[in-house]
């Protein structure tokens, strides 16, 4: 039973459209994260959250919003999708502290045409 799940797993969107990527975790972790992975850039942090109701900007937040309505759920929202946002998106959960690990979901492949 996967502890971090993402939906959808694949998505094709049109330029200018709104896209919502969803993430659910059953680890009861306080922190959740959204990353994107692109060839040549590796994994980069978009937004993260320290708990329900909180969202923080990561390293590349422009063009993205995030929402954390509960401990378990964290969404990434693209209000006006652009082709440059075509990527693989990963959600993760974790805790803050020296020995804590982050656990990742299976990823969502987003294509913006």
């Amino acid at each position, binding site marked *: 039973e996967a502890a971090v799940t993402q939906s959808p797993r694949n998505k094709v969107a049109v330029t200018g459209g709104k896209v919502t990527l969803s993430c659910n975790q059953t680890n009861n972790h306080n922190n959740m994260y959204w990353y994107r992975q692109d060839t040549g850039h*590796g994994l980069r942090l978009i937004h993260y959250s320290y708990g329900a109701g909180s969202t923080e900007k990561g*390293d590349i937040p422009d063009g993205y919003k995030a929402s954390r309505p509960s401990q378990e759920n964290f969404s990434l929202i693209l209000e006006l999708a652009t082709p440059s946002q075509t990527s693989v998106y990963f959600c993760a959960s974790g805790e803050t*502290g020296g020995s*804590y690990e982050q656990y990742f979901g299976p*990823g969502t492949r987003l294509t913006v045409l």
Partner: protein
Amino acid sequence: GQQVQQSPSSLVLQEGENAELQCNFSSTATQLQWFYQSPGGSLVSLLSNPSGTKHTGRLTSTTVTKERRSSLHISSSQTTDSGTYLCAIEPGANTGKLTFGHGTILRVHP
């Protein structure tokens, strides 16, 4: 500049050989984590090792915090070890944010 550098960028082994992967980082790290990414794309945490030596199965990680480096040793490699190995650090104090290296691509031939 890049905060986390991994070497080599790629490595080819025959099954049974050992692998040594390196991770160097330019800032202090309160957390260091090694991940495996399968050819299909899924990311799995291998181990967390912010300092010292840690073993799990055929994997041994040694992190020397003062020298800002970590290694991952894979013993007796198997074809199923093929994939990308990523090193990530939490720079600074307890932010919970990870910065990733670009990874080492490992191919193990039978």
